[in-house]
């Protein structure tokens, strides 16, 4: 083999290796996203570029990626952040779960969800379960899956119920939260939770065929919307009604750099770009939030 050919191959390999970590070129807005938000961000970029063809925006991913804007999935303290949308988390199981009838027979209220997903808060309860054998049969048969990565929404789910992700029962996965659905598909007698964007088929606007939502103990009218399996009805319900069983959290962009291009892009997302949130399975910001985020962006200038 020719030395030159080897050198080119080696160079190409090294170049490929480091490309993800290379800092972005000037004049291009780089955006780092997780898998769950990728669809939404790409929609925003596409729509924004349609009206601002001169702006170049590229999506980067990977642990070493460095970007102008980084999408975060929770409220951030002490950093500049512009919130651009919201998401909701719902508890879910496999449609082929052998315990599906038992699960569906129940109305899952807050205490039931806490009991199912978390370790006992109370020494007495834990003792009864662990030592005296007073088992909650359904709970014992179901394995909880939760994420262990930094980007996982496990912490958001846990804190909504007043606990921490360390308190979650069962098994963990390493990787994007989307894989939680793979985990419950493999281990059918299991439950997990996930964002609407992962739970629903964005094209058909319906719940994925292989999944069933845990019937929540909510008002009858609210139950109907959730039962419908329709993404838009679900989003409408969560946007319009405050349901304490459903964790809702904001997504936002933190910035490494801030310039006029980035400012304009963010202002567009917060205002015009909101129309694409539903399409990607996300909730829009409330009017009040839109107003406050725009005001903050003006202040940043």
């Amino acid at each position, binding site marked *: *083999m020719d*030395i030159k050919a*080897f*050198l080119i*191959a*080696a160079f190409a*390999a*090294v170049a*490929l*290796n480091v490309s993800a970590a290379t800092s972005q070129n000037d004049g291009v807005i780089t955006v780092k996203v997780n898998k769950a938000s990728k669809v939404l961000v790409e929609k925003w970029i596409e729509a924004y570029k349609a009206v601002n063809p001169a702006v170049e925006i590229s999506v980067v991913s*990977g*642990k070493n990626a460095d970007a102008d804007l980084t999408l975060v999935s929770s*409220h951030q*303290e*002490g950093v500049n952040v512009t919130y651009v949308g919201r998401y909701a988390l719902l508890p879910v199981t496999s449609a082929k779960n052998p315990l599906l009838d038992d699960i569906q027979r129940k109305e899952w209220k807050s205490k039931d969800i806490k009991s199912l997903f978390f370790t006992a*808060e*109370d*020494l*007495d309860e*834990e*003792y009864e379960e*662990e*030592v*005296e*054998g007073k088992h909650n049969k359904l709970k014992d048969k179901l394995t909880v*899956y939760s994420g*262990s*990565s*930094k980007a996982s929404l496990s912490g958001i789910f846990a804190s909504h119920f*007043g606990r921490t992700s*360390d308190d979650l029962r*069962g*098994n*963990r*996965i*390493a*990787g*994007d939260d989307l*894989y939680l659905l*793979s*985990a419950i598909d493999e281990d059918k007698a299991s439950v997990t939770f996930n964002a609407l964007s992962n739970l629903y088929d964005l094209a058909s606007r319906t719940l994925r065929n292989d999944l069933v939502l845990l019937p929540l103990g909510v008002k009858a009218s609210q139950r109907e919307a959730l039962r419908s399996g329709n993404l838009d009805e679900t989003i409408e319900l969560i946007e319009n009604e405050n349901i304490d069983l459903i964790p809702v959290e904001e997504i936002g962009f933190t910035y490494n750099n801030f310039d006029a291009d980035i400012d304009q892009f963010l202002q567009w997302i917060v205002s015009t770009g909101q129309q694409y949130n539903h399409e990607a399975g996300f909730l829009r910001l409330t009017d009040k939030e839109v107003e406050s985020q725009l005001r903050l962006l003006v202040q940043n200038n």
Partner: protein
Amino acid sequence: MIRKRFILAAVLTVASTFAASAQKIQGTIVDATSGESIIGATVKYGDGKGVTTDFDGHFAIDVKSLPVKLNISFTGYKSQNITVYDDEEEINVKLLEKRSYLNDVVVVGYGTQSRTQLTGSVTTVKADVFENSTASTLDAALSGQVAGLNVTAASGQPGAESSIRIRGGNSVNASNEPLYVVDGFIYFKDPSTGSTGLSAIDGSLNPLATINPNDIESIEVLKDVSATAIYGSRGANGVILITTKKGNLGEKKAHISYGYNLGFSTVSKHLDLLNASQWARYQKDYWSNKGGYTDEQIASLGKGTDWQDAVLKTAVQQGHELSVNGSTDKSRYAFSANYTDQDGIVLNSGFQRYNFHTNVEWELRKGLKFGINATYGRSKQQGLTTTEEQVFNSSPFSAGITNSFVYALLMPPVINVYNPDGSYNFTNPYEYAYFAIGDHSSNPVYDLKESVAENINNYLLSNVWASYKIGDFTLKAAVGLNSEKLTQNYFSGAYTSLGLATQGIGGTGNRQTDTWQQEYTITYNKDINDQHHVDALAGYTKQNTTSTFSSIRTNSFTNETLKQYNLGDGAGIYTPQTGIVESTLNSVIARVNYTLLDRYNATATFRADNSSRFSKHHRWGYFPSLGLSWNVDKENFLAGVNHIDYLKLRLTGGLVGNQEINDYAFTTSYATGSYGGSSSYAKANTANENLKWETTASYNFGVDFGLWGGRLGLVLDLYYKKTSDLLLEVPLGFASGVTSQIQNVGNVENKGIELAVNGTILKRRHFVWTAAANIAHNKNTITDMGVTNNVIQGADNQQILRKGEALGSFYGLKFEGIVQQGEDVTKLPTVNGQTPKAGDVKYQDFNRDGKIDGNDRQILGSIQPDLTYGFSTQVQWREFDLSLAFAGSHGNKLYNALGRRLEQTGDSYNVLTTVLDSWTAANGGNTLPLASTTRPFSYIDDRYVQSASYLKLRNLTLGYRPRLPKSFPVSLRIYATASNLFTLTPYKGYDPEVSSGTDSGTYPSARSFVFGVNITL
């Protein structure tokens, strides 16, 4: 060649590219609570493959494809399953500890050990006990926390020392204090190092004042021989291991805390003394009415001067505490600075301390660690002057006037503190015995305000260490220095009681004590076949102590403005005191812990000590011990018993020693003095070539029992200790040239039982209620005194060392009432050759010889309590926390010398109101004789050997942690603490806690209320 190299480079690069895209899973396993890396955790994957985590808790595995299931486990933790779907980021696994008492890791001598593997009796006291207590020294916070550990304050003076006894006292003349080990540094304070040679200062600084309680992470109390034998020569009295706070590994963010507290103290009890009208009436009715008061004048005198109130005050205290701790990838650190300023409740007394502490360790390279622990500070105690120096038959001290505070209690209430012009009143016509010259008498308020009695200690306690782990071996070397400079200042001006006779007296003294410690150890820690665990230690340690002191005193001052800072003004110069003492302790240590099947544990310990304190033929002491324990709960026959969390039986036995006597006690020594204007030498000690170690053989049987999922824990211990070859001060004949000599004579026995219970009463998310209680019984007996039986001790000959009795036994007459009118006195024993008459005291004729004398004295109880106990409880409800800590003692006695003094009637001094109930012909009375009588004997009687049983609410703390907005980057706790809120006791003096056993007017204890805030960033 070049071509080959290029090819190789290219292949490697491409290979690495493929490798980078292959499935390499990396992660770190940490403790979910502390964030510290877990070394040796097992990561299983695939078909039984597995790796263990390294020194940093890190693991890396290569898998062919994803997803892959991992099972992560480690002893004592709940295992965790993780399915890995992508390898984009490192996996950070937090393992939760299984909730079990036996999973605790405890600090033991020269290392740590899992409680499951422990054979000895070790009690741990956690940091929260010290955080809840606002005490300035750790001993005060320890009271009531540990079964078998009895803390008795020497006095209520801020910064004063306490007496700590673990399972009773073993020795008569050698120290009975436990050994302290601070972060590995052996910290023992020889009582002689607490003085510079000046003896006019009442009390001394607490040696533990050098340790700020808030710096303590945990304290381990080693009680039985298996635990203490590794400290062989010094383990006989138990060992207290103090571990200071470190930064938490994994906590990358620095934690910065600031605390401030402010409080006040008042005396916890007032004595009822006669007021002016009562005193004048008593003088007129029973004595010579020196004041010449008429009945009308007596009625108009009213309360007069309350001298007790005049010398007591509401004292203010405050403290600042700043600490920073955290860690980086390769280091952890903790720094703290503390300032305590505590006014005393007696005028011109108090305690101040500046303290700086650091504890830092670095991992210099894999396996190689280096660390420094250092505490630097300055303590200052302002106390009272004492008359103790002048102990002779008619001295104020022998008359019970031990210091200016006591003198204030004795002041007639008809005497004013100040003259009408505001100047001090130095006229007291009733004083003619001790503190008056001509028409000039001393004034206790002036005494206290103007006298100086200071102990100032500048200290450095430092330890530098390095350890290197090679495979299963760890080598460790440590060098430490404890350097203390004690300064004592003393001044009593010409108008004070102590300076009255000499136109002022003052002095200053310094003592520099340096202790160097070297320690070299090697440990071997190995799990063999999941069935055997071996943990072995061998090492050498050496401690050298050098203490030099000097002091000077002068009297007859012409100018007192600069007090002790102008001693040259004193015309009379006392012989200066200077000296040096050196001691060395060389030791070889070894210990092997072996655990079989996680069920059966054995610990064999050996220490050989060579001490310079004994004669050259007896310097080596050998101290072996063996401990066995059995984790019964892990046996198959208990596998189905769900209610039992753990059940462990322990059995230990061995020998430990005591060398805590003065240096050079084995050899002849001479003391310098002055005679007829020239220097002189007097024999101070006569040689004892046979002086050797005092040894204690000790046996312990213990049970650790846990029930109902951590709800109830119980520790029961039974022990027997026999101390032989007591280091006893034996009286010698006149021919020897000295009055006594330390010899190895006699035995002391301690046997007892201890029970500690702790439990969680309720545990809800927002409400947690826990409680702990302990109780201990110890029986102390002198079983042999050689030929020196019946050694009487004390200023009032109130105590005796006698075979068959306990150490600290009181010795005196038994009071049988007052002779009543009409009583047949012919049947009563005579007193000093006289038949008692109505109104006289009756004593028991113990030897039935028809007369009362010294031979009728008998044992009246002892300072040894039958029971010591403690109870504490904590409640947490939402943002509030409440804790209470009680401590108690039952069956011990205390000689109330102050009470005896204050019921001694006469025409000079004030008395207690109980004297109003003295016998009279009209009203009878059966406690005190006719008030005009004087005591027939100097012997004490059982009216003044009083029960010192008590139950104290040591600490009551209420805290609140307000919920702050998330944007607020701090956490806040505000709290209020009350200390010594109440004491239930039949004792009639100020406080039943007086460690010496004789309450001769010690500084009264205070009740304090402290409010504080802690802010953590």
